[in-house]
Structure formats: C-alpha cells, structure tokens
C-alpha cells in the first residue's frame, strides 16, 4: 500500500517483525516501518478482537499498540526504530508481565 519515496536516502535500519527481517529507515517510527513493510501488520483489539492498523500516527488514538522487545502495549507511532529491534503484532490484550 505504501511506497518509499525515491528521494528517501536515509540509512537502512534492520528490525525483526514476527521474527522476519524487515528493512526500515533511520528516523522511521515503528508504525511507519510496519506500514511500509508491506506485511499484514493488523493488530487485534483488546476487547472485541477487531483488526486495526495505526491511524493517527501522533500518539492519540492508540490503534498502533504493538509489542516491542517483549514489552506489550507500546505505541508504535511514538517509538523510533533501532537496529535489531524485535516487533510482534499484538493480538488482543497485553499479557501481564510482558
């Protein structure tokens, strides 16, 4: 759905999404990197289990919740990617202790 601009020459950052290597760019947020990856990155909501994608991209709507390096319910749109970051798509509620 999304394509990188040809003028985007930022350095590549390598992250893992559900264990698979994904190339992001330095300065991407986790949500931007997920949307640009072309993968199915829909999370499932905590109560009804409805599929959702990041929406507001500015920290307000909480539809980008994602598990980052083992910590659930992170707002992917507010967290910059870093080399080796492990991302898991959160299906439903956060598990306590994660």
């Amino acid at each position, binding site marked *: 759905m999304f394509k990188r601009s040809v003028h985007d020459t930022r350095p590549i950052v390598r992250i893992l999404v559900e264990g698979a290597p994904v190339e992001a760019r330095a300065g991407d947020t986790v949500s931007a990197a997920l949307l640009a990856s072309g993968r199915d990155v829909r999370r499932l909501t*905590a*109560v009804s289990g409805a599929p959702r994608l990041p929406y507001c991209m500015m920290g307000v709507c909480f539809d980008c919740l994602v598990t980052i390096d083992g*910590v*659930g*319910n992170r707002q992917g749109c507010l967290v910059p990617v870093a080399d080796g970051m492990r991302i898991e798509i959160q299906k*439903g*509620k*956060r*598990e*306590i*202790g*994660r």
Partner: protein
Amino acid sequence: MSKDYDVAVIGGGLLGSAIAWGLGRLGQRTAVLDEGDVTKRASRANFALVWVQSKGLGMPAYTGWTVRGARSWANLATALRAQTGVDVALQQNGGFHLTLGEDEYGRRADLVTRMHNQTGAADYRMEMVSASEAGRVLPGLGPEVSGGSFCPLDGHVNSLRTYRALHAGLKAFGVDYLPERPVSGITREGGEFRLATPSGEVRAAKVVLAAGNANQTLAPMVGLSAPMGPTRGQIVVTERTEPFLPHPLSTLRQTDEGTVMIGDSKEDVLDDRSMRQGINAVMADRAQRTFPHLARLNVVRSWSGIRVMPRDGFPIYDQSDAHPGAFVACCHSGVTLAANHAFEIARMIAAGSLEPDLVGAFSAKRFEATERRAGSGYY
C-alpha cells in the same frame, strides 16, 4: 410540566435509578428528577464491588441487608439483561482483602473476630486465609503478602454498564427521566408533593429523596433528616491486560474487559478538582507489592470522586412522619445494594410503608437517639 406521577424520585444516580427502575417495574407512574451530565456523581466514580465482608461492624442489621443485596444481585443482572440486552458482567465467586506484613494480618484477624462475635455473624462466612492459601487461587502474589480475609459472597460488576442498563430499563418501563431539574423546594398541598425545579413544577403523590449527599439539604423540606459525611476517594486505572486475577480484591480488581482498577483512598478533604499524586503513589505501591508483575503495566487514567456517605456509614431509609409519602434513601454502597433498592425498597415505597423487619434499623432516628461516634462504617 403538570403531569402527575405516583412517585417522583429526586436523583438519577445509581440509587435513584435502581429505586425508579423497581417502581417502573411495578407499574408505578414514576419520574426521575436529575441534575445534568456534569454533576458530581458517585455513580461514575465508584469501585464497582458487590461487597459483603467487613460490612456492618456496629450495626448487625447492615450485615443482613448487605448479604440480602449480594444474594439477589444475580436476579437484577438477569432482569437487566433480559430487558435491555446489557450484560453487566456480574461475577460473584468470592473476594479477598489481602494484607501486607504481619501487623496488617493481625489487625484484619481481629476485625474478623469482632465481626463473628456480633449478632448476625451466622450469615457472614468471612474467614482468614494464609498467604499460601491465597496464593493457590491468586497466582503471582508478592512475598510481602501475609494472607488476608476471604468471603465467598463477595463479587464485582461493571458499574457503568449497570448504570446504563438501569437507565435503558427506565425508558423501557415508561419512567420519565427529567435531567437538568435540580429541586430547590418541596411543598405538600392537597395530598400531593410539589417539587420546584428550574423547568417548572413537578407533582407527585410520593417523593423519594435519592440525591446522595444533597439529601442532607432536601430532607428537612419534608420533615426528614439525612446527616451526611461525604468523603473523597481516588482510583488508579491501568491499561487492559490478559486476565490474571480470578477474584476481586477489596482494593484491586480486574474488569471483564481487562482493565485493572486500583483503589481506593478515603480522604476528608472534599476538593475533587485535582489528583493527589502522593495518594496514587501509595495505592500503586501497595498494588505492585501485592502483585509484582503489575509494575510493568501502564497507568492510563486516574480519577477522584466524592462518595455519598451517611454520617455513621450505614444506610438511611425513612418515611416522614410529618409528611407521609415522603421517603429518603441514602447509602454509600449503591452498587452492592442495587438489587435491594430495585426490588425491596421500590416495593415498600409502592406499598407506602417501609418494612421494619427489613429496614427499621436504618431510620435516621438513630442519630437523634445517640450521637454516634463518627466513622465510615467501612474497615
């Protein structure tokens, strides 16, 4: 506004709504006079426990009334579900009050003993449990937990959905809900009560004061008294998480939708315009010492509210001697007692008299008899 009603209920919170719902169910022509959406409303600031243990020290009748309310809650939940389709998520599988350290455990054990020594304890079934007994049903307890008390009658509910269901039910029963009608005066003429509101007068054969702490002001208008001693409380709410807590605790519960609620302070300063972070810090600290894995959860909300609290902590139900047909109802535990209000109190009001064997002990005349020691009745 000249329509006549059998009963006008002043107050559309959880208590007034439950009574009005019960009156509507009995076919009474009923109006609910409420303030607006922005009014201070304990019905939206409560902790949503249906709670029995430790209630009634100093007034055994309150123990019996509470047990009765807890036992009939399922009937209310079923009726609301059938009528409105709203599931209020009632869970009554027993609740714990956990203690941290040996001193707290000792004090709780003393309380349990005092409760059992009081008349009416037969109904109570509250008992102390060791840390290892508690740990068998509550995985993840921290090392400081010394045990606590357990009562199999305790439970919790989704109180906001209960409130919504009651209001949907009022509509279905044909009860008139009249918002923005704070009552400024009540007079009795020609066998009916006339209630003055900014939108005109409302007339009814009977009037029920269910306006929370404002009952203190309204009651003298009809020869009643309702001495109140409101308190303030704060609650901390976390993000949703997978279910981990199979029983409600007195100050910690997980809602049916996964949220963890951490309560609840009891403060005397009644300014609820801002949060006191020091109090939230103490509550959060206790919560994470009880369940260390809670430390990783994010807090998403916190609120303060003013509690409805009769001066001695126990409910007040009375009918006026000077103005028969005028009733007053106030209590702190509007959630726990909701089924009693919907079924018992509504029935008594419809019949025109409060039943002494069920609620005689709750007359405000007790305040005249002796000046009781001020206390909340909650321990």
